[in-house]
């Protein structure tokens, strides 16, 4: 099968177009060769009722967004089965469809019950069958759950559709910029603005349990400070207010410490703040710029950017003995690195021939590979399943978000209607996980 080039633009939504439109559009610019062809059949629901969300369309969009699947348009479907028993295999084999996702929605007192199945057309067997329940507000979450389950069943990789993305927008003229810190679903829907300011906001990051965020804001007298916001309670605390830089916050994997950059002692260095007892520990001592700390999954090491060698490169420090080793040797600018969840590689911003890309360094083999074809790339953030990353870039002078799979095979853009978009951070946890009840 030839390489597929898909461009899908979801702007408003067919059902109940109230506040559910996404500010971020999804444009898949490159899919995998041999994408698996899936038919996501509209779920059956009682006549004369309408769902506030079109569950099958959300599942369809999720699978398509991953770039690994090609979904059959509903209007090409010759029949609309709701379970294995209804399936006429030839209707699907004719169209080359390999798998079907189908099911039924039932209105309950508290919300909805959803039964869904994943069916292998060629083997004519059920791969997965589950029943889940949720409230009306959780309909989108239920749909994303279906997407995740199907994705994992067919690829072996946990899905990332039930996650959220935090990002910054900047709008307006240079003299009067408006900065907003937003959190939206991974597909761009249900955006909430958690901070709005005429002063810069940047470096927003998630706590490992997904319940808190930390960020840098200049809102206090125009000076940078690090803030932590509890997403459940809405409580915001200014954590640091030192002279000089207060930046690049990064939670430790156990959530108890916050690495950061402070220049109060003369030049930018990495410090670690114990969030429980508020003790501050300085961990780099070099007259160069040390910044952008990011933790290893075991909490025992931190990778960071330093220009101690003359140009920005990535270094790793072991916290036990503060020993430092340099990790990058290719290219004259490597920055904003983070480790893949399994520790096998490092993604970073990498400059090659004057162009800033996102690159992946395989730590075992020492080989660096550029993943993106865009330019002026920054802020890569890995999905919790380790298979995709999102980053900020520019297309036609406009700041947009884009995503690429770790193997570089899938690429998509997420331009926004809200001005320049930047600084994406992928939430580390799924927003909602449903427990299947027995079918």
């Amino acid at each position, binding site marked *: 099968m030839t390489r597929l080039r898909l461009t899908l633009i979801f702007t408003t939504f067919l059902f109940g177009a109230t506040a559910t439109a996404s500010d971020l559009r999804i444009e898949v610019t490159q899919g995998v060769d041999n994408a698996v062809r899936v038919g996501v059949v509209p779920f059956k629901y009682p006549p004369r009722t309408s769902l506030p969300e079109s569950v099958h369309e959300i599942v369809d969009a999720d699978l398509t967004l991953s770039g690994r699947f090609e979904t059959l348009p509903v209007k090409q479907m010759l029949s609309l089965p709701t379970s294995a028993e209804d399936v006429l295999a030839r209707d699907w084999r004719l169209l080359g469809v390999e798998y079907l996702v189908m099911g039924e929605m039932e209105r309950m007192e508290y919300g909805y019950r959803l039964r869904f199945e994943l069916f292998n057309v060629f083997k004519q067997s059920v791969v997965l069958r589950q029943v889940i329940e949720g409230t009306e507000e959780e309909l989108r979450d239920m749909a994303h759950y279906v997407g995740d389950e199907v994705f994992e069943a067919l690829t072996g990789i946990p899905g990332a559709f039930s996650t959220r993305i935090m990002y910054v927008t900047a709008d307006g003229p240079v003299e009067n910029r408006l900065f907003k810190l937003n959190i939206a679903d991974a597909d761009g829907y249900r955006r909430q603005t958690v901070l709005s300011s005429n002063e*810069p906001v940047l470096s927003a990051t998630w706590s490992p349990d997904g319940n808190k965020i930390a960020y840098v804001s200049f809102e206090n007298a125009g000076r940078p400070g690090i803030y932590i916001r509890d997403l459940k309670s809405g409580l915001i605390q200014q954590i640091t207010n030192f002279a000089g830089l207060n930046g690049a916050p990064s939670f430790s994997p156990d959530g108890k410490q916050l690495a950061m950059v402070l*220049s109060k002692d003369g030049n930018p260095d990495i410090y670690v703040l114990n969030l429980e007892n508020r003790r501050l520990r300085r961990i780099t001592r070099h007259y160069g*710029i040390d910044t952008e700390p990011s933790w290893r999954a075991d909490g025992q090491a931190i990778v960071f950017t330093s220009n101690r060698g003359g140009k920005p490169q990535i270094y790793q420090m072991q916290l036990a003995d503060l020993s430092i080793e340099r990790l990058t040797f290719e290219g004259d600018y490597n920055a904003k690195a983070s480790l893949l969840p399994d520790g096998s590689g490092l993604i970073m911003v990498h400059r090659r021939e004057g162009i800033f890309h996102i690159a992946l360094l395989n730590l075992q083999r020492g080989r660096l590979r550029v993943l993106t074809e865009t330019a002026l790339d920054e802020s890569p953030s890995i999905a919790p399943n380790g298979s995709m990353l999102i980053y900020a870039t520019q297309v036609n002078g406009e700041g947009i978000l884009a995503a690429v799979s770790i193997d570089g095979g899938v690429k998509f853009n997420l331009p926004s209607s809200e001005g320049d978009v930047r600084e994406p951070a992928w939430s580390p946890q799924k927003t909602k996980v449903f427990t299947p009840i027995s079918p």
Partner: protein
Amino acid sequence: MGITRNRGLLALIAAGLFLAGCASTAPEEDTSTDSSIDAAEVVVEAPKEMPVEIQPTITGGEKVMISKGPGMGTETLDGTFYFDFDQAIVKRSGHTELDQHADVLKGNPSFRVRLEGHADERGTREYNLALGERRANAVRAYLTAQGALRSQIEVISYGEEKPAVLGGGESTWAQNRRVEIKYRN
């Protein structure tokens, strides 16, 4: 420093008094004498042009206006200094004006400035915040080496967050790699 200021003021006041004095002391003509005796000519000398020293003043735009020299008027210093990519060395073209700022600060200990450091949009944001601070620190070092006091100078970096010009390309980037001196009131 205060003395110079008062001298200027005194000179003005003196000149004013002198002029005022002249107006009221025109001698009365003695009309009883015969006309062969001319009224004494009183030559009123116009006061000499006293060069008034114009002191540096802080403008509403957070810049400083200084004298260009005796009788030569004033100029407002631009206060913006530029840098090469990933560098924190003030370009040579800015050194003359930097010296003028150092003189202003040296001569006016009550003046306070804020040095705002910036970077162009390329590269990562936090690294650019550090770079902007580097640049502002470099300007501070230059000024204090010329006699300004550290206590007169505050440093802040905005990295790439507050560009002078939106957009991309070499010319725009060059305008954004800067430190701005802002005078505080």
